């Protein structure tokens, strides 16, 4: 076997100069993960590297956002919708050689829903009453109430299956069941993955993958133009895309994401706690100018916190159409005819930095003055997300189907509405698709009419790749850079 492999490698080396396909890939993303445990941090960058490549869950997202079987080959749902019996795939092994068993599933789910769990999305697991091992390849999950979203929830990067024996060092050495094994992390520069030859499913075409982290738009442009990298997922300089499109060396793929880009408003900070002030802000904003100016036309306007490609989406952009006259009038009625001053804290992505300057100009036009401060991500998380010390900020919420965050009064924009909380609680129990769609429409309308935040646009994700790369995800239904199906022509 080793002999055979070295022969093929030698042949590959000999032929590499000719037309034989390359088998490694260097792909860049903007953000570096803080550590490598997707089950204990909100940082999307962890999933961007590891989701599906290294870690897998019972179910998983396909490239179109649908939920398909993952480590669970099949499942049965009881009549009352309370018990899910999962059959695990055969032959799945962790990268340290231990076999995947039902015990690992029980361990992972129990760990995620435990009292002291640090899982960033604990709500995904809140309805699980018990997890029982039937035999080595069968596991039964019992819910305390029916949940129409359960299989969807299990597809999240926060619900991947881990092994108790490797949990200790997971933050530095992630050990999963995926098609790629973690190999090396050079902090501040790159993470290397290699093909897992014992993979239970279809073997990936690539034998080595390098993730590089380039957040600076100029550096990203230079690295791509110089072909230092083969592809860039979530390319940060949309203004340069026409140059890549015109260049036969590259392909540009523009997809949609689950990222609702919003002007978050601190709903507890006067005078922003006044709904009419928030309404005035919403009417002062010209979305199309922001999409054109900050994203160079990439992005779909939204009027609520919901992805337009979701069938349950309701177009509520009319609630906050661009009308500076009305905005001035609302401000005057609220007793702020001369406007007021608030802070606008901007994280690094260009949608925030550029969008922030445009919004500041638009707000200034109706009398609202903003003090802009540009923050790094760590500062932003500290001051804005955890500290809630801000008036306005711009951020893209990239989790799929995350309207439920409005039911959390302690969440950083601090929207506190008991009716909305009840609605989301009912929604989580409802399994009937039509009733769910109606409830979702109510929820979308509620936050839109309460002007909780300024809803700007659905973030598009441009991927720039060298010509000849096939199989990259176009859209980003979850934070992931799934390379298991990628190959060179």
């Amino acid at each position, binding site marked *: 076997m080793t002999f055979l492999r070295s022969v093929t490698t030698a042949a590959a080396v000999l032929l590499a100069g000719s037309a034989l396909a390359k088998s490694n890939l260097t792909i860049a993303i903007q953000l570096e993960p803080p550590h490598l445990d997707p089950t204990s941090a909100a940082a999307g960058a962890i999933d961007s590297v590891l989701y599906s490549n290294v870690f897998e869950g019972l179910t998983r997202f396909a490239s179109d956002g649908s939920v398909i079987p993952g480590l669970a080959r099949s499942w049965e749902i009881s009549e009352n919708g309370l018990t899910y019996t999962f059959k695990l795939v055969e032959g799945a092994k962790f990268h340290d050689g231990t076999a995947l068993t039902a015990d690992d599933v029980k361990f992972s789910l129990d760990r995620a829903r435990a009292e002291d769990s640090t899982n960033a999305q604990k709500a995904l697991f809140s309805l699980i009453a018990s997890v029982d091992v039937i035999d080595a390849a069968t596991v039964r999950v019992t819910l305390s109430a029916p949940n129409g979203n359960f299989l969807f929830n299990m597809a999240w990067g926060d619900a991947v299956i881990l092994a108790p024996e490797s949990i200790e060092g997971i933050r530095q050495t992630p050990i999963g069941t995926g098609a790629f094994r973690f190999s090396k992390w050079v902090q501040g520069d790159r993470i290397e993955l290699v093909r897992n030859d014992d993979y239970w499913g279809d073997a990936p075409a690539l034998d080595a993958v390098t993730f590089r982290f380039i957040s600076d*738009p*100029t550096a990203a*442009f230079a690295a791509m133009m110089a072909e230092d990298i083969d592809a860039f997922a979530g390319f940060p*300089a949309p*203004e*340069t895309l*026409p*140059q890549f499109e015109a260049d036969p060396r590259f392909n540009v793929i523009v997809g949609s994401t689950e990222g609702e880009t919003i002007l978050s408003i601190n709903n507890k900070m006067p005078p922003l706690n006044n709904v009419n002030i928030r309404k005035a802000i919403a009417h002062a904003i010209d979305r199309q*100018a922001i999409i*054109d*100016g900050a994203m160079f036309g990439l992005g779909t306007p939204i009027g609520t916190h919901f992805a337009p490609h979701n069938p349950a989406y309701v177009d509520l952009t009319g609630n906050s159409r661009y009308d500076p006259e009305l905005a001035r009038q609302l401000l005057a009625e609220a007793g702020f005819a001369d406007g007021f001053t608030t802070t606008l804290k901007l994280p690094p992505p260009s949608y925030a930095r*550029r969008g*922030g*300057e*445009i919004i*500041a*100009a*638009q707000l*200034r036009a109706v009398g609202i003055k903003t*003090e*802009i*401060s*540009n923050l790094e991500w760590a500062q932003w998380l500290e001051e804005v997300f955890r500290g809630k010390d801000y008036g306005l900020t711009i951020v893209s919420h990239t989790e799929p189907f995350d309207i439920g965050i409005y039911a959390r009064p302690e969440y950083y924009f601090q929207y506190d509405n008991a009716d909305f909380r009840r609605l989301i609680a009912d929604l989580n129990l409802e399994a009937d698709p039509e009733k769910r769609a109606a409830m979702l429409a109510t929820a979308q309308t509620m936050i839109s009419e309460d002007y909780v935040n300024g809803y700007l646009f659905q973030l598009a994700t441009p991927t720039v790749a060298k010509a000849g790369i096939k199989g990259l995800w176009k859209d980003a239904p979850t934070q992931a850079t799934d390379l298991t199906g990628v190959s060179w022509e």
Partner: protein
Amino acid sequence: MPRSKNLIPGAVLTAFFTALALISFVYTPHDHTTVDIVNRFRKPLGGDFLLGTDHFGRDILSMIMVGARISIAVAVVAVGVGMVAGVPIGLAAAANKGGILDELIMRVNDLVFAFPSLVIAILITAVFGPGAFNAIIAIGIFNIPVFARLTRGAALSLWQRDYILAARVAGKGPVRISAEHILPNIANLLIVQGTTQFSLGIIAEAGLSYVGLGTQPPAPSWGRMLADSQTMILFAPHMALFPGLAIVFTVLGLNLMGDALRDILDPRIRRDAR
């Protein structure tokens, strides 16, 4: 005087940018903060916009004018901070030559000097938050040892003069001697050094703004205009060209003027020329 041939071009350039800055208080062709997406990336000399518009449709000429005001203000205040703090420190060190105070001051000076100035500035703005005010403080702090050192060196040689001895005999204390006899005699040196530091201050402000730690939007800054234009340089080169030229010519003007002033004012050079 062939020595001061730099004076005219230096003074003209400096006066030009100072004039731009002053005019911007009363007049700019357009409002420098007005975002007008429809009119973005306008080429220079076309229609309404003499130097074109940037990626938000803002008028580049107006931004450069207001940016000149901010650059010059930051540099002036920063040099002022350096002088106001550095000169008394240097005078005190000279008056106390060889004493503990002198040693202490000069060693602390060495310490501050040993750090690269822009790194100190980045450190300060990173800790206290970005903004024009903190940029002034940061640039001011690394100006202090420059002036302290210059003052001490010049003052030390003056302390040996007979007229200082006479003043001491007359019963004047070190504070009065420093203020009445030393300071007036080193003022020309300080002016020359001030001009040089002024041009370094302009560069430092542009550098800090370039990395996002200086002047914050919407106030325009030459450094940030350069940073913004980076990825667009291939299709909108005018966005980088004009703020870049503004920095180059302002600094060039100040340096030429500094050289010329040195020729005219510096007593050491004057003596050599005789």
